[in-house]
């Protein structure tokens, strides 16, 4: 049992992290009042940009440095791409769900097209991703050390640091106060002198940068190549956002749950203990739980009140 858990844990964490950072991106956007179902597409953009940059740089510099530059580029590209969504839903008052869908469709098509031009096939392989390392000293702690601090990716710690910082920004800084106000009651924010458009722009761009980073991390830790999709992880991040009730610690729990459940489902065929359960049940398990959770939470939903509504000044 213990060895099983110890084996599964690193995979579960690796799967959790890109989900978590993308979900945090969605959290910023939705808390500011802009629904962003384009997370999936933004991840694809990040994954593509990361792959292109790493593919080009790895032959000419230290592979590790290339990976980090690639991740930075992924985040930047996600942020830039998200401006499209911001422009449509904030300036043009477009329907945010439609704009997000457009982002998803555009990202998929555009990146595959570009990838074909670069490599000939739609895929972009990278020479090598990020390496797993033990955290010195901490990995010596019994049990915890084995589970959390052994063979970890540096990106895991980066994302956790961003999550902590995100929590601080949302709950402790003036930008966070304004962000939450814009998502709940933009007219209140406006009449208090807050520039609703600016707050939402920043939030949507941040959501793009985080999703892009999520796509990049997926590439350098799990996928190993760009394939034109992120396999629905962006949508799963959206589900985690709802499951986690739009709260930073909530989405940490939700994404960790998804990470663990998906990993168990993936490895079930090689683990005798789980073999008895039909694979399909394990595979749909996280989604079923999400559905149940959504129904259970729907009464006390903490969804930002104004999310999804374009802000029009004169409207009463």
């Amino acid at each position, binding site marked *: 049992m213990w060895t099983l858990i110890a084996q599964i844990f690193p995979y579960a964490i690796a799967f959790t992290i890109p989900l978590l950072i993308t979900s945090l991106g969605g959290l910023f956007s939705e808390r500011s009042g802009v629904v962003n179902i384009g997370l999936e597409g933004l991840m694809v953009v990040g994954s593509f940009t990361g792959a292109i940059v790493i593919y080009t740089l790895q032959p000419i510099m230290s592979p590790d440095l290339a990976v980090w530059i690639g991740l930075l580029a992924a985040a930047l590209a996600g942020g830039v791409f998200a401006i499209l969504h911001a422009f449509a839903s904030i300036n043009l008052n477009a329907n945010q769900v439609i704009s997000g869908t457009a982002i998803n469709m555009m990202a998929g098509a555009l990146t595959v097209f570009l990838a074909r031009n670069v490599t000939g096939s739609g895929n972009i392989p990278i020479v090598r991703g990020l390496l797993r390392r033990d955290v010195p000293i901490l990995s010596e702690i019994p049990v915890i050390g084995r589970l959390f601090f052994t063979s970890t990716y540096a990106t895991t710690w980066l994302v956790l640091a961003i999550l902590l910082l995100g929590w601080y920004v949302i709950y*402790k*800084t*003036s930008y966070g*106060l*304004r962000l*939450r*106000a814009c998502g*709940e*009651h933009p*007219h*209140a*924010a*406006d*009449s*208090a*002198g*807050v520039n609703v458009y600016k707050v939402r722009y920043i939030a949507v761009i941040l959501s793009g940068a985080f999703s892009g980073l999520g796509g990049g991390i997926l590439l350098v830790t799990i996928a190993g190549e760009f394939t034109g999709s992120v396999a629905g992880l962006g949508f799963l991040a959206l589900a985690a956002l709802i499951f986690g009730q739009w709260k930073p610690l909530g989405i940490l729990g939700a994404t960790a749950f998804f990470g663990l459940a998906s990993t168990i489902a993936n490895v079930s065929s090689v683990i005798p203990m789980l073999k008895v359960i039909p694979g399909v049940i394990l595979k749909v398990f996280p989604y079923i739980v999400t559905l149940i959770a959504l129904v259970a939470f729907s009464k006390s939903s903490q969804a930002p*009140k104004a999310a999804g509504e374009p802000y029009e*000044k*004169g*409207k*009463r």
Partner: protein
Amino acid sequence: MDYVVEMLNIRKEFPGIVANDDITLKLKKGEIHALLGENGAGKSTLMSILFGLYQADRGQIRVNGKDVNISNPNVANELGIGMVHQHFKLVHNFTVTENIILGLEPKRGLSVDVKSAAKRVKELSEQYGLNVDPNAKIEDVSVGMQQRVEILKMLYRNADILIFDEPTAVLTPQEIEDLMKIMRNLIKEGKSIILITHKLKEIKAVADRCTVIRRGKFIGTVDVDSTTKAQMAEMMVGREVLFSVEKPDKEAGEVILKLDKVSVKSNREGVVAVKDFSLEVKEGEILGLAGVEGNGQSELVEAITGLKDIVSGKIFINGKDISNFSIRERINSGIAHIPEDRQKRGLVLDYTIGQNMVLEIYDRKPFSERGLLNHNAITEYAQQIVEDFDVRAGQGVESVARSLSGGNQQKAIVGREIELNPDLLIAVQPTRGLDVGSIEYIHSRLIEQRNRGKAILLVSLELDEVLNLSDRIAIINSGELVGIVDAKDTNENEIGLMMAGIKRGDTD
């Protein structure tokens, strides 16, 4: 002359309507200046211009003698202008302090310094006698307290020109008293106030001068002490206003609505809101239900209309047991309902007036045939209601409900429900927040229904209204029927006592 604000010849147009047409308003330092006008007269628009939410198409604004261009609320803030909006602009899941500091957060390092802000809020609250808890969440506090938070928001920003947009529309009589005391305090501390209202009683009680506008036009500015209520009312509506309505004697007929020991659960967990409540409403009578807010009136109405299940008892319409009927079946059985909250339950705000007029009957002929809507028939039907009930809207039946002023929204609802020709009309707070002109109009329509032999259940928190309109008055306290009295042989005092739960005869 010492004017702190001069708005000169202001004009503002919205698509299809001139909301302000050459309006002039001058506010003296240290006065309470009332702005009086019917619903839709353009009061909120004028004040939104002063607060920088809208730009005037024409006209001039001077603050402390200097020409200013108020392009947004921040500019207004800097000029010392603050506004309490008709619909509060508060974030429901923020604390009082967070709402007040929003947009102007004090900082310590990178963090917002909530602690010292809360202290400042507490100090201000004490200075002006506002009695606000800085750490309470908005969703947990009363409407009156929310309003005081809005006042604090202005004070925190050091505003000394304060605009109140219909502040009393949502308050209980006691809270109104308190608010007037607060306003007098504010004047004492050197503030100047513009008070939008259409309650003449309140103008008489606190205001020094009063500017009247009608349908966007400036009518005049008068001294409150030397002007009678009747004169002001006439300026406002453009004709003489009758303060009480004609009501011929009428013998009540058959029982239309019969409640037999009805109990209803409260919206709060576990509490019973209405207990063993029995009541009859007969054809050709208005039965008023009086009570202090929150004593089960809302739940009782919801039970009759089918919005809420009953726990025990039976409800009859024309002798038919409808306790288990769906809402539609109840409408078809002859119940119509003017709901308490017109924006939440009365209208779909983003539909047009035309669509709103057939909400209950869109599936009947001729409005729909074989599953398709007949827009011509709907428009024609709605057009008739809009004309008959004097609903004023920029683009007629094509106007989106949201764009109408509150009074016109209410007239549309009243028209829709009466047009159903119901046996029982349930009117809950039918004139809340309306001006005397609209109130008079709606009252006369209700009485007309009664005279045509319909049954009316009138639920209102305004004692004047209940006493004026009703034939019989039922008093409810803690969900129980205290008693039923004849409107002719009772008075405000007796009903007030019964509302407190003291039965008739107990006092002798």
